[in-house]
């Protein structure tokens, strides 16, 4: 299911921790990076590596918002809805994204290119309004700037 490179990376991560289970979150990130999401089979495999049960892994995965149990778009647009972004016009950015992409938060475009999410504070308050696309931060957003960013994505 996983490439040899990912498996090797996972072994290296597990070896660093004094207690195996501690490697759970970083290992899940490696798997998600490789597969794009975390299907059941992947959780079973992670459970085997860390001497856990499927349920141990599943309950952890469901607690954290950055893990996806279903495939998401190639570009995950995460627009902040918290207070500092709200004060600086964050709502208009979200509305603009909804119009441009034709989807609502929580949805993916039919071509699988974009998933839109509303997220809580991402730590970009002094440069609001802000969003993240996958792991990249975008600050000082305006509708025009959003259009430029979307157009620049490969």
């Amino acid at each position, binding site marked *: 299911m996983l490439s040899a490179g990912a498996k090797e990376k996972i072994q290296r991560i597990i070896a*660093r*921790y*004094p*207690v195996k*289970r*501690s*490697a*759970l*979150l*970083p290992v*899940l*990130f490696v798997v998600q990076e490789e597969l794009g999401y975390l299907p059941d089979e992947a959780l079973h495999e992670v459970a085997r590596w*860390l001497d*856990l049960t499927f349920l141990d892994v599943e*309950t*952890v995965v469901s*607690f*954290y*918002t*950055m*893990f996806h149990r279903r495939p998401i778009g190639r570009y995950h647009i995460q627009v902040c*809805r*918290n*207070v*500092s972004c*709200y*004060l*600086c016009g964050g709502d208009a950015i979200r509305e603009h994204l909804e119009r441009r992409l034709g989807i609502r938060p929580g949805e993916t475009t039919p071509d699988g290119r974009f998933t839109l999410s509303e997220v*809580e*504070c*991402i*730590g*970009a*308050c*002094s*440069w*609001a309004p802000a969003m*993240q696309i996958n*792991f990249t931060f975008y600050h000082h957003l305006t509708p025009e700037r959003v259009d430029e960013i979307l157009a620049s994505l490969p």
Partner: protein
Amino acid sequence: MEKVRVLSARFDLPDSHTIEVYLRTGGYQALRKALAEMTPEAVIEEVKRSALRGRGGAGFSTGMKWSFVPKDSSKPKYVIANADESEPGTCKDRVLMEKDPHAVIEGILLAAYAVQAHLAFIYIRGEYWYLKERLEYAIEEARAHGFVGANILGSGFSCDIIVHPGAGAYICGEETALMESLEGKRGYPRIKPPFPAVVGLYGCPTVINNVETLASVPPIILNGGDWFRRLGTEKSGGTRLFAVSGHVARPGVYELPMGYSMKRMIEEDCGGIRGGKRLKAVIPGGSSAPILTAEEVEQCTLDFESLLALKSMLGSGAIIVMDEDTDIAQVVYRITKFYEHESCGWCVPCREGTRWMRKLLERLLRGEGRPKDVDLLYELARNIFGTTHCPLGDAAAWAVYPAIEKFRADFEKYVRAAAVSVSAEPSDVPGARRLLVV
């Protein structure tokens, strides 16, 4: 007050994140000094003398925290740098780790030496992935120079550092929830006591500090605790990074001495309120801190004591500024939605209370509020306060009831709007509306 750049001294230098720049500007000298000339106890004493208090939120004395770690314990000890910066309004640790990762690493090593820990973790929120990579790179640079790993600088002291990603959960910024998360579990807070200094990660003595707190330690060791304390106030030593956001002309991360005037910061450092408008309110310490009115801001100084006297808190040092056009009910709604989303669900008052507060606020904002809804919201918040295991419930309550006390009109106006719509309803179905109101 004199503005001295301690934490941000390197921020403007090109390649400030590299070990070359760090070494050229006094980097790792504090570690050298501590390992060569100071006992672990002397390091703790110096930090105590500095009046350094936690920069994450609670503001507890750092030296005291370290001194609680039992010296005679046979268990391994750990140090954790809390880089889970998630408090709405807060983005200062991000700048610190981006611009000066080695200051954080040196601070961690000094803390580890002080409590004799041989393994340290940096728990960083997953959204800051680029900083995780930057810190990992910096750790390898430091290892190559003999500052990290076995037998550091030939002293016989060894310490390694692991950067560990969180995965999107505000609650993991709470220290015991963070440890649960680091152990590979859901981020549920633990009941305290016992405190982490005695029973922490893997049940072992653990020191956990915010990254800015740790980055303050090298200059303290190098220049002395008295020097650091005198930069700030008697009880709040040193300088601090303030993340300013909202309606100021120049939002940003500012380093200012503790005790600095909040009004001066807004007007001079941040260029005043955007568009020449008037100040309405400030949330002074991240979304968990009770809101201040413009009058309160006049007398407020940026230190723990002043904010405490105003029944608020300096928290994470995030200053959210709001102009005269701001609708406080809308602001409170955003914050309440956040706490509802981030409640771990363990304590009923927090899990259910935040949901009900959000629903009440939504009803008000839709213009469907009942006359008693503002009081109901107030009572609800008061009932959450003090009834939960961790401070998330208190934070959710603090975001609501002081805002109602100080800006009641902003909430009442939605009730008035609702009253108008009720009287405009047809009157031929008596009681029908009452049935609809849930």
